[in-house]
């Protein structure tokens, strides 16, 4: 049984990094990387918690995480396709230039 606290601290740090990346960064690809960091924080939390049953590692969490990795991969793929289309229209990857829709 691994100690839980270091993993939960890492999850918290990844959450902070992912959210601040979403708030601070201007580049759209980096925003998607921020989303990916958030997803991986959740995945890490799953894996860390699966080691807490005494005696064995619960395989249920692993199957959930495998599917979650596939799902967030597809989300990021669709996001990158949209970034390509944004670049065609705006000729920039700066999210702050996308300000035509307001209110």
């Amino acid at each position: 049984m691994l100690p839980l606290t270091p993993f939960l601290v890492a999850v918290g740090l990844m959450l902070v990094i992912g959210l601040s990346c979403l708030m601070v960064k201007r580049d759209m690809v980096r925003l998607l990387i921020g989303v990916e960091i958030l997803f991986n924080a959740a995945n890490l939390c799953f894996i860390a918690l699966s080691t807490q049953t005494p005696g064995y590692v619960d395989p249920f969490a692993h199957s959930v995480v495998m599917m979650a990795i596939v799902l967030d991969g597809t989300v990021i793929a669709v996001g990158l396709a949209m970034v390509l289309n944004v670049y065609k229209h705006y000729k920039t990857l700066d999210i702050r230039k996308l300000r035509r829709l307001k209110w």
Partner: protein
Amino acid sequence: MVGQEIIAHGSHLPLPLMVLLLGGITMLLIGLLNERIKIPWLREAWMVIVATAALGSVYLLHQQLKTVPSKIIVLVLWGQSPPLGGCFEIDTLSIFMSGSITFLVFLVALYSINYMEKESRLTEFYTLVTFMAAGMTGIVMAGDFFTLFIFWELMSLSSYVLVAFLKESWGPIEAGFKYLLMSATAGAFLLLSMSFLYGMTGTLNFAQLAASLRGVPISPWLIVLFSALIIGFGVKSAIVPLHTWLPDAHPEAPSPISALLSGIVIETGLYAMTRVLFTIFEPSFFKLAIALLAVLTMTLANVMALLQNDIKRLLAYSSIAQIGYMLVGLAAGTAYGVMGLFLHILNHSLMKGMAFLSSGSIAHEAKTRDIRNLRGVGRMMPITSLTLFIALLGLGGVPGTNGFISKFILFNSAIGSGMTWLAVAGVLNSALSMAYYLRVMKTLIGSPDEGFKVNEVAPLMVAVTLVMAGLIVVLGLWPAPAISFATKASETLVNGLNTYIRAVLG
């Protein structure tokens, strides 16, 4: 009671879900046929057939459940029995929600035939619509959190692409990227809340979560879990601090998709939130927080809707306000309040679906969505405008329409659970909302400018909106069947939790 706990077991996908997933896959082949061999209307006809089949299979499931109201069908997915593997659990509430979903998808499929005929890439369009419907049906039938998450992402992915479908102009792309970024972040928080639930109980099955988490003393971890859940579900169902994607995404999507998104997708998010909150927490735990969110949601959305000049954007803000009214029922926390919530979901899917379809017809003919340029359209498109008027009156809650019935139940339930201030806020907001609905009507029946000419849209589009208008009035004047069905549905959620737990855990 004897005879109340009859459970049917099986190990296949629920029938409506099977129909929609197979229909979505075969749609690609059908579309190929349509393009290569040039058989006209093949895709459209196939879409209508798939939607009809889905509606019919929901009816079959309903017949299966009808004899015993609290019966639950458990369908095992991954080979393991429920607490370990994934499963589907179909009760009256699932039937109620999937009935609303497939009915709206059916009407939208009929409407899109004429509306989308000039667009290219229609095969992708219909495939995505089918998969979005499949995702929503999967969410309402999911029996564990993980199955819910998979179908949640299926629904979300299809809706991201559908919002950005008209990629030749900048609006849909910008709205779509905003929607994707916010919704994907919410998905990450949903996964995080799942991991907390897993860490607390060692399972993700709803029945086992209910058995092990309900009634535990409030701890800081429970509050963290609650906030992660609110963020995760709140972005999809557009609760106010998290709503900013909606007024961009819904107007920029093609009108049939706006009708689906506003009519049922955000409500599916609300359904998932209601199901999970009622399963995990006692109502007294989340009452006050949800009540505050409800007041915030409806007030801000109504004030913002007053400022809009774009008709579809106005309707999008009105959707947020309606989510606020629905949250009143959740905040009441009683079976009566939840009944109002689900009745309002059904009514709102008809009213807002139709409002978007009719305003889509108007925007399609007049080539503008700006209310200031639509003066006099009502004189040239009388039937479409009439249906739009009925939808707007229903959204405002005028007696005689179904919106009045469900709003009355919602505000009544708030008084019943001792939150009179919430009901007062709701009634004041309803009155405020009439201001912008009446503004749209006044503009539409004004006298047109010189040389401004539009024609009535294709008969099928008019027929779809007329059917929905008829249903709004009928359900407003004779609400008994809908109310009794919604009552049964909410009873299974609020009072039938023990049956639910026994049905799954045996």
